[in-house]
């Protein structure tokens, strides 16, 4: 009973945060994850498809890769 009440309270807090603009609306969150998923899968696909060509290019220029 107490646990059910706690869950309800948490859900209410979540909805309050969403309404106050603190938390991202669920629809936007789903869309964002979908876009990021497509971008990341595309990047992974390109890395695999272009394989050694890109990796060798990267090896040649590692001087600037990830060096921030």
């Amino acid at each position, binding site marked *: 009973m107490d646990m059910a009440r706690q869950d309800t309270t948490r859900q209410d807090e979540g909805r309050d945060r969403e309404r106050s603009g603190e938390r991202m609306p669920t629809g936007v969150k789903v869309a964002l994850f979908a876009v990021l998923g497509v971008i990341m899968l*595309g990047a992974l696909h390109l890395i695999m498809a272009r394989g050694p060509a890109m990796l060798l290019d990267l*090896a040649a220029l590692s001087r600037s890769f990830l060096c*921030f």
Partner: protein
Amino acid sequence: MPHSIYRNETPFWLLVLAAGATVGVCFGIRQAFGLYLAPISADLGLGRNAFALSMGLMNLTWGLAAFPVGAIADRYGATRVIVTAALCYMLGIYLMATARSESQLVIAGAVLGFGVAGGSFTAVLGAVGRAAAPSRRQMGITLTGVGGSIGMFAAMPYAHWLIASVGWQESLMVLAATAGLMAIFALAFVSAPTAGSMPGAQSMGAALREAMAHPGFVLLTLGFFVCGFHVAFVSVHLPAFLKDKAFDAWLGAGALAAIGLGNILGSLLCGKAGELIEKRLALSLLYFGRAILFLVFIYMPLSEVTVLVLSFALGILWLGTVPLTSGLIMTLFGPTWMSMLFGITFLAHQIGSFLGAWLGGFLYDVFKSYDAMWWISILLGIGAALINLPIRERPVARLSLDAVGSGQT
């Protein structure tokens, strides 16, 4: 209950999304520049040094500009800074695409440096921190960092595909247009609070004096120097180290790609760790973890699989320093001059980067081995782990008095 102690009309989630996207685009494009070394050098008939000089100048300008750019972003708002950065970025990329000589490439590098300085962490972290309620600051900073990590990983293969599809000059024009997106993202920061809009805010000079006199800030900056040293050494010399171990050339780049992938997860995990335990402890563990991994690189029998696994593990400890270091600065001094103070620590990071890249090559030439450099990196890692421990992770007295004065606790 307001979501922030300041009035801010943009929803906080949108602000964080815009911050992450800005940093992602900024870092992503910057990472992709490396792919242009070969085609630009070949097409223009220049030695590779010309392009390397241009990129070196970009990094130098970025480091030197971080402090003033951060101060301007804090005082006048991130929007102006990011829009200016986007314009610099577009101009720099255009100059690079149309360059015909070494001097034009070098000028492009300097202009690009201002673009990267304004579009990267420095400007946006302060804006996110000031807009967030104290309990949400670390999360906001962490997600901004994750955006940067995703950009760093994902942009490179797309740029490589673009170069192959449309040629290097046209692909640079696409990158310039992409950089323009930063100006659109910057609109999210229009109503974000600034140091100038906060009543009774500390002056810039007072903030600088306070930070410079704070032992914790000095120790944190020294630790971030070590971060730059490690990151640059590994980025620049890991492929050569693996080649010396008789691995195929692709494994070096594969290891760097594994670091990039691990970095996305690491940014999230390290930022989260900063919410669960004291950030100084998380930083200490992170630097210590790096030292252990370096030790493993030296002594463990390496195979292709172990190299990739170790690299992924190293990636988890890669840029997790950013949310932790910036979060700790915000804990100590508050968010008012956050971008400016982070700009100072970032300059130390870039100096460390330069030394890590240069010393690795110098010591290799002397000893014909990377062993000395690995050991220096291990000792620096242990040193950074130790110097983060004595940092007193509590707000300066001024913030406590402000909180009491404004009725907050």
